[in-house]
């Protein structure tokens, strides 16, 4: 304030008033800009707000510090500390309050004049005003004045005098005896009353921070430090104090006052002001000299008290209210994160709000939440109303629904998994059919003990076609039911027929017979597809039949089918016929792609089937099967290669037919997962049929782990268990090793280990006919040393689980016996114990005990075992 440096004080009770003090005091009112616009002399502070100067007070020269009286009445009473150490009470604007009138003008004069550095009103006992002064060899530097007591003693005198003109104005209004004098021989640079106890005053002395207790002023708690300027108590956390020295802020915890709990990164320029945000916890604003930014330190997530080991998390930000250098700033007392900044040079003021950081979190169930300031937003996906909306659903929702419908768990009719997934995703349908065929044929091959094929089946058509070794036979076949020779060459080889089988067109056998497939398509009413496949098998008559059947079966009577059937029947292989010409142009108007490619096939030159092969709305399997029939050895691998690359790029699961469950397949799946996030399908698919080395691919393991984590996050613990079981079956290497053993207190051996070792012994005994004898190990004793196992804290019976693996007789009955109730009953007998107090008992007993109790059942043990278990109180959200 001396000369140039201004400061701002907000009124403690009027959220629209503040005082700027530099060489004089100016009271401003802040308001919306529109209402202020009309008035002359209003100063714009921001786009919305403007300030109006209400009053100016220049009665007190040599101001060094100012503090605003904390009580509601009298408002606008200010204490001003002067360069000579005098503290003067003054006010701004006219006040009609009598108490205020009597207080204004009162002066508090120290015995020895020196600069007053700081002032602090006691927040509770508002008559107490602490002043911190420079040092004097024979005086105290912290003087606590009572603004009322002296006043009360002199009011009588003052009242009498008021009849006469006052002779000496000073005598009635000057107080020279402070209520408390503390801090000898040392300068006091900053002061604040502690909020945890209004009798405690924290003072930044010349060499130390000291806490003075007014109840015993001869004692002090102190810590030697350089950081003694600008002491400020966190209004939200009364044990936390900030202070600074030059460019460094120190944060103190009064409970651990020996050293700062934190020091913030040092600034190159000396600090001038440090202030805790009154409207938000743990936010500290700092200002350095000659700076146009305010630096903010967010300690909201800093643990308190800070342990010695923990690395404190402080988020540092800076805000720039304007271009000019900042003289001072002040947080608004109630408006969130708002402050007014005054420039160093020309008293220009800016009103602005520090924008709160936004933190955002996805839940595991497709909802999104974000927090900004005191607002919390929850963004939920609208529940889908119809099937058509299903496609838009978030993948997390989809996966969750699919997990509930046991998607992926049908290991026999593998193709049915696409129905479990909802049955409306063509890619999944294609995928699961592909897997079905792969598994089916490889199983049959295995049964027939055909060597070598299994590998090739898994490795996809791309590799099968590549491996075909010049044994192709091309034939020119007749149109079935006609003598006419086609000019369409058709290729055969073992590999090609294998590929056709994988495409699902033909079943096992050397004969290429699509009739079964056609019939199944007819059953599914896929008339166009069936007709096209019949045509590709050079059976126009069958194609026409199928179309006719489709026409008659469909209730609406698709006119297209009729027209196409008629058109087909007019097929001619004459190159220049009108039929050809018309068909090749009109076919493009057909909406159904299968109908379209039928004519494309009929009107194409042999070997030039691009119109069929690159019709992307045709299922990949059909295109591949077509290619296997009609592309030459030179064309086929090229086409397959190209198609594979296309599928991989697009992450199209239909392409898995080509890649198989190979590394290529993982690449394809990777782009599928990248696009969709569907780790569920990826996990199941890779588990279903991949050979070991593909499963070991870190990407595959990552999908599987992520899917497991998802199930955990959804609290689908039963589903996760099922998944783990399935995974263990399909990928034996994934079975985790036993990590927890129950070991005997006496011999230290694992009791389950002994169990597995037991059968030998048992058999040995039974050989001698002593089974059932007392020596037969009881479940309640250690199988190793036969000493009793610990007792359950509740029933006091020795523990022990009869279900522990007892192989041998009765296995089948036992299995049949494993109903849900039975399983649960057996779980009830399991060992459980608290890792903290080491007490425990039968799982069932413990569970029922902790339903009604919080403390350990062992008497005199106060361990809150169940509360220590963070997941113990969660319930699964799926049903087993």
């Amino acid at each position, binding site marked *: 304030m001396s000369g140039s440096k201004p400061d701002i004080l907000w009124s403690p009770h009027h959220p629209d008033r503040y005082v700027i003090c530099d060489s004089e005091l100016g009271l401003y009112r802040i308001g919306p800009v529109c209402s202020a616009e009309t008035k002359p002399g209003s100063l714009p502070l921001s786009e919305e707000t403007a300030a109006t100067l209400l009053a100016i007070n220049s009665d007190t020269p040599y101001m060094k510090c100012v503090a605003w009286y904390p009580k509601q009445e009298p408002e606008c009473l200010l204490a001003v500390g002067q360069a*000579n150490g005098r503290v003067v009470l003054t006010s701004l604007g006219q006040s009609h309050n009598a108490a205020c009138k009597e207080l204004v003008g009162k002066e508090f004069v120290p015995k020895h004049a020196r600069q007053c550095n700081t002032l602090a009103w006691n927040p509770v006992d508002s008559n107490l005003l602490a002043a911190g002064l420079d040092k004097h*060899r*024979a005086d105290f530097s912290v003087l606590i004045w009572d603004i009322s007591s002296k006043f009360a003693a002199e009011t009588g005198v003052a009242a009498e005098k008021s009849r006469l003109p006052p002779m000496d104005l000073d005598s009635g209004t000057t107080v020279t005896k402070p209520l408390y004098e503390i801090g000898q*021989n040392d300068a006091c640079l900053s002061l604040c009353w502690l909020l945890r106890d209004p009798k405690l005053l924290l003072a930044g002395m010349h*060499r130390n921070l000291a806490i003075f207790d007014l109840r015993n002023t*001869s*004692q002090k708690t102190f810590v*030697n430090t350089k950081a003694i300027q600008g002491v400020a108590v966190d209004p939200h956390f009364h044990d936390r104090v900030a202070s600074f020295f030059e460019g460094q802020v120190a944060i103190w915890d009064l409970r651990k006052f020996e050293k700062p709990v934190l020091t913030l990164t040092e600034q190159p320029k000396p600090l001038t002001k440090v202030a805790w945000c009154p409207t938000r916890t743990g936010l500290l604003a700092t200002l350095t000299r000659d700076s146009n930014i305010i630096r903010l330190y967010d300690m909201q997530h800093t643990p308190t008290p800070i342990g010695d080991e923990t690395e404190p998390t402080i988020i540092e930000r800076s805000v720039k209210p304007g271009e000019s250098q900042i003289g001072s700033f002040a947080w608004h007392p109630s408006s969130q994160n708002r402050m007014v900044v005054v420039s160093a040079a020309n008293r220009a003021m800016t009103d602005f709000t520090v924008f709160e950081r936004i933190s955002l979190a996805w839940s595991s169930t497709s909802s999104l939440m974000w927090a900004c300031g005191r607002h919390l937003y929850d963004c939920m996906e609208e529940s889908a109303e119809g099937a058509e909306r299903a496609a838009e659903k978030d993948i997390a929702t989809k996966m969750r629904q699919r997990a509930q419908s046991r998607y992926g768990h049908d290991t026999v009719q593998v193709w049915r998994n696409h129905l479990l997934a909802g049955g409306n995703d063509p890619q999944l349908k294609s995928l699961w059919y592909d897997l079905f065929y792969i598994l089916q044929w490889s199983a049959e091959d295995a049964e027939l003990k055909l060597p070598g094929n299994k590998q090739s089946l898994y490795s996809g058509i791309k590799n099968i076609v590549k491996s075909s070794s010049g044994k192709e036979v091309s034939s020119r076949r007749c149109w079935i039911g006609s003598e006419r020779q086609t000019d369409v060459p058709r290729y055969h080889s073992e590999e090609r027929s294998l590929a056709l089988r994988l495409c699902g067109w033909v079943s096992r056998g050397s004969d290429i017979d699509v009739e079964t497939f056609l019939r199944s398509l007819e059953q599914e009413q896929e008339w166009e597809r069936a007709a096209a496949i019949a045509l590709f098998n050079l059976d126009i008559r069958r194609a026409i039949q199928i179309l006719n059947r489709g026409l008659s079966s469909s209730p609406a009577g698709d006119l297209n089918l009729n027209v196409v059937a008629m058109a087909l029947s007019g097929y001619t292989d004459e190159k220049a016929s009108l039929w050809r010409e018309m068909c090749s142009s009109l076919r493009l108007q057909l909406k159904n792609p299968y109908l379209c490619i039928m004519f494309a096939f009929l009107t194409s030159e042999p070997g030039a089937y691009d119109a069929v092969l690159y019709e992307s709305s045709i299922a990949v399997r059909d295109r591949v099967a077509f290619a296997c029939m009609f592309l030459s050895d030179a064309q086929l691998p090229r086409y397959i290669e190209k198609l594979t690359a296309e599928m991989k790029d697009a992450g199209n699961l239909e392409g898995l037919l080509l890649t198989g469950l190979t590394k290529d397949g993982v690449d394809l799946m990777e782009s599928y997962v990248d696009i969709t996030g569907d780790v569920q399908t990826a996990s199941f698919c890779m588990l279903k049929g991949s050979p070991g080395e593909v499963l070991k691919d870190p990407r595959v393991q990552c999908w599987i782990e992520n899917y497991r984590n998802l199930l955990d996050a959804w609290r689908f613990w039963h589903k996760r268990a099922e998944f783990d079981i399935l995974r263990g079956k399909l990928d034996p290497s994934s079975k985790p090793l036993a990590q927890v053993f129950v070991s005997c207190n006496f011999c230290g051996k694992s009791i389950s280990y002994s169990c597995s070792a037991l059968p030998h012994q048992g058999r040995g005994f039974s050989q001698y006919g002593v089974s059932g004898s007392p020596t037969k190990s009881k479940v309640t004793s250690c199988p190793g040393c036969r000493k009793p196992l610990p007792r359950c804290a509740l029933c006091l019976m020795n523990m022990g689980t009869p279900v522990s693996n007892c192989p041998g007789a009765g296995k089948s009955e036992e299995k049949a016996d494993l109903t849900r109730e039975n399983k649960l009953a057996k779980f009830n007998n399991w060992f459980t114990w608290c890792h903290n107090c080491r007490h425990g008992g039968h799982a069932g007993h413990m569970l029922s005990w902790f339903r009604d109790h919080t403390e350990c059942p062992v008497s005199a043990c106060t361990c809150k075992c169940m509360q220590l278990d963070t997941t113990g109180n969660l319930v699964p959200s799926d049903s087993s």
Partner: protein
Amino acid sequence: MMDLHILDHRLRVTSISKSGLEHFTHPLIKLIFLRNRTRCKFFSLTETPENFTLVLDEEGFKELQPSEHLQVESSTWLPLNVVSNGNVSSSSQAVGVTKIAKSVIAPLAQQHVSVFMLSTYQTDFILVREKDLSVVVSTLKEEFSIYQEVEGESVPVRCQDVTHNLQKNSKEAIQLTVHPVLIPPNQFCVMSLDPDTLPSIATTLIDVLFYSSSPKEESPDQELDCIKFFSFSLIDGYISLVMDSEAQRQFPSDLLFTSSSGELWRMVRIGGQPLGFDECGIVAQISQPLADGDISAYYISTFSFDHVLVPEEDIVSVMGMLQHHRKEAATS
């Protein structure tokens, strides 16, 4: 228990002869008025009829050009400062050298440690030679918690750090050289000033400091016995001024701070011949009787003599005490 702080200043004690002042006006103006231009943190200038005594840290000392007019005491001096650590002993109202006469001054005199005192408005500095520091610490460690200030931090001094080279520590009786005293009639005041307002009194200050010998229009013949004594110090940002009431009249009244009681002080100058720096017990000699009488005092050592300021109302009893002391010394 009191704290004794060994401050982070390394000081030189110098004097400038009256006639040589003009050679040093540039560094002095810089050290007094241009605080931002110098890294000097400890500066004290005292004018006595004999010379100007300059006590300043090494940064300030660099500013002074060697000259025949500049006398430099060869040692480096360290300032000590006694701070009560909160436990106020309000039995004695006396301050300054009186307060520490028994706890610091007497024991150091006994150990033959020469001290150089410098009282200011804010505090009292006890300057000791750097080479005597170990003796000082071992002598005072029983009475005081001793801290050494290092870059602004107070570091406790552990006693085992101090080697016991107390070769001078022979317990011979203090040689009582009784120095003549001079008690001029001037009334002195001790004052302070907001450093920010220093520029506004600059011309007056320059006038008082550097042109005191120029003939004044008002003839000073009524105060022929008055001696010229003016002290200015700027230490760690704090200004302290000691001047007689005549000099004070030249300053604007609202800028200088002093005690609200407006107390005035009288001076006792010790020494007939320049005292030198090696004699011990001079401060003890005078502070002991003052402590016995519970009389506050400022003590300002200069290059030639020592000066004690005592409250005006106590000067008669101080004179009596000194007389008594002198007699005692003569009889012994």
